[in-house]
């Protein structure tokens, strides 16, 4: 067991909990100090970017950085929305479709979520108007009372269930949304209005935390991300009475996402706005790299709402792959709402699979494992905790899916920058750039590789969580065995769907 790294200037190294209190705060009970992911990457390894690059800390502490990131998002969003409303009705000639469903979606799944957690939330322009209105300012901290009613979100809804429902509602229209510019424009406009309304009634970023349609999977899958914002030194936080990060001060705001940075142990609800960097008088926040999957081992705040999010995302990956990349015309006709009965059939199948079939099958295997091991752990707890092992498999299946969207259709991006509205413009001389699929020869390698990596990681995370939940290694192994079998089956099924 290695001693905790004390030197603040050392950027990389092991960050093992220094005290039982810190271990409890980080929710790492039952995780040995020398635990490694896949037997290779130490769970406690961190590389502190803000210690290594002092200029980065300076940038993040600046009040301008949040605003400029949002303006970057706004710069993409305004023309896209304009294109959606008044541009060409043909999907692949309209900026909104190409930007949102090819560029943004691929960027999110292939780069931002796995590598940089919820960094998208830092530049998302959709809630900006509401936040500026609440604060009555764009940048500076105003001492006036926040605008709006500032109500607290109702306690029974402080979970992922609202988001699960909203995401599923939009998922029913995925075929329409991804092919009709007006539909995507309508959705984005509705989100802006809803975010604005929410910020008038409720406090801070209530919308982002509890209502944003993509917030659920961004939150859950960010647990796998290779980046995190955490306090630098727990002892400093503990002895520091003021805790600016949870109460507004004269210079900065408390965490807009309603987190407590001193004890935050998972990425789920961290929108990476960096306000904690700005408010902390001890300069005790850090932005760090880490091995993927750390937060899946955190034995805090776990719940069935997040389990169902994992089921929904895994089921949706399979259904979307079948509908959008399968050879079955009937599925496409249903999803495209050509007939009402077909569309209702599609909705019924989608909802049944993600809400009932996937959880029931998973539950069956967990039940078997529990019987096999004879553990006293309640079924519900075992079911909830083990469901986090579906996160790597699910994210990597989405990555395999996103490769199959980006490689064939990425060339639309080159064309669309010259003619964003489908009006026959040619801004950069690339308007006639033909549809050019790219690298499809290598797609099977990418997809199979992604699925195998997902399987390996899911098995590893599952066994670690099982040991943490059940206690002794023998029972944990037996409890996990059927789930391991199920995960293998899931990987094999996705392999068939993508390349079989």
């Amino acid at each position, binding site marked *: 067991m290695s001693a905790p790294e004390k030197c603040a200037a050392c950027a990389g190294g092991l960050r093992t909990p220094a005290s039982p209190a810190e271990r409890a705060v980080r929710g790492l009970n039952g995780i040995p100090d020398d635990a490694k992911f896949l037997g290779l990457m130490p769970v406690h390894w961190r590389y502190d970017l803000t210690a290594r690059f002092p200029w980065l800390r300076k940038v993040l502490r600046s009040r301008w950085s949040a605003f400029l990131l949002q303006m970057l998002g706004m710069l993409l969003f305004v023309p896209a929305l304009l294109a959606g409303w008044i541009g060409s009705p*043909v*999907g*692949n*000639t309209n900026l909104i479709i190409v930007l949102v469903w090819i560029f943004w979606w691929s960027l999110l799944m292939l780069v931002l979520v796995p590598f940089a957690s919820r960094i998208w939330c830092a530049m998302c322009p959709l809630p900006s108007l509401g936040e500026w209105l609440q604060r009555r300012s764009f940048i500076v901290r105003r001492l006036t009372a926040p605008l709006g009613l500032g109500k607290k979100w109702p306690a029974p809804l402080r979970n992922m269930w609202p988001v699960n429902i909203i995401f599923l509602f939009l998922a029913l229209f995925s*075929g329409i949304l*991804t*092919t*009709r510019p007006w539909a995507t424009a309508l959705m984005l406009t509705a989100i802006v209005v809803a975010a604005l309304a929410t910020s008038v009634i409720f406090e801070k970023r209530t919308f982002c935390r509890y209502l944003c349609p993509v917030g659920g999977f961004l939150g859950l899958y960010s647990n796998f991300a290779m980046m995190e914002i955490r306090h630098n030194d727990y002892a400093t936080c503990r002895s520091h009475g003021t805790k600016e990060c949870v109460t507004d001060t004269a210079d900065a705001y408390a965490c807009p996402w309603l987190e407590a940075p001193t004890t935050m142990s998972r990425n789920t609800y961290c929108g990476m706005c960096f306000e904690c960097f700005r408010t902390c008088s001890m300069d005790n926040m850090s932005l760090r790299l880490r091995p993927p999957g750390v937060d899946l081992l955190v034995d805090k705040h776990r719940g069935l709402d997040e389990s169902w999010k994992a089921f929904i995302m895994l089921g949706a990956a399979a259904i979307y792959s079948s*509908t*959008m*990349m*399968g*050879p*079955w*015309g009937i599925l*496409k006709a249903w999803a*495209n709402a050509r007939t009402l009965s077909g569309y209702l059939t599609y909705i019924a199948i989608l909802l049944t699979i993600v809400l009932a079939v996937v959880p029931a099958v998973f539950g069956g295997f967990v039940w078997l494992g529990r019987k*096999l*091991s004879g553990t006293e752990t309640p079924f519900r707890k075992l079911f909830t905790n083990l469901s986090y092992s579906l996160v790597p498999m699910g994210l990597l299946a989405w990555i395999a899916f996103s490769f199959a969207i980006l490689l*064939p*259709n990425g060339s639309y991006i080159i064309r669309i920058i010259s003619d964003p509205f489908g009006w026959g413009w040619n801004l950069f001389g690339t308007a006639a750039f033909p*549809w050019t*699929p790219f690298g*499809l*020869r290598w*797609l*099977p*390698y990418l997809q*199979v590789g992604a*699925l*195998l990596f997902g*399987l*390996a990681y899911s*098995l590893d995370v599952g*066994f670690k969580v099982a040991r943490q939940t059940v206690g002794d*290694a*023998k*029972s944990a*192994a*037996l409890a*996990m*065995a059927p789930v*391991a*079998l199920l*995960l*293998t089956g899931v*990987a*094999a099924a996705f*392999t*068939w769907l993508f*390349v*079989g």
Partner: protein
Amino acid sequence: MSKRWLALLTCGLITVGGLGLLLFSGRASAGGSPKIVEIDMEARQWEYGPGIVTVNQGDLVKIHIMAMDASHGFYLDGYGINEHLEPGKPDTIQFVADKAGRWMYRCSTTCGTFHPYMIGWLRVRPNYYAGAGWVLAAGGGLGFTGHLLMLGVKKP
């Protein structure tokens, strides 16, 4: 500790055996003399009929294709073949299926809302990609499951 090595060995044996079988079966099926495969295909909004075509590596494939309702296209992933199809005009796409694996054929002429999802599957056997995926998943996953079971029944 020896149990652990046993598990690793099982895992390795499944993988190596599977990969060997895969290669062997690939050789065996590729050993047959290449045939000419003729397929009649219809392209319509937004599907191909048939949606799944299976051939063997080395076969000469002739797809007699016609767009039934609107202008469509036929692009074959991995092969880079691209053909524009005018409605009602028969066309023949001819190629040697030299690249094994499963490849998607997809519409390359914007043909309506679901154009990007107008896709069919061409299976060129032996499918090494899927085979390797399954063998490695089975070797890793079943091996790990076996490892867990052995850990569980180990005497204290």
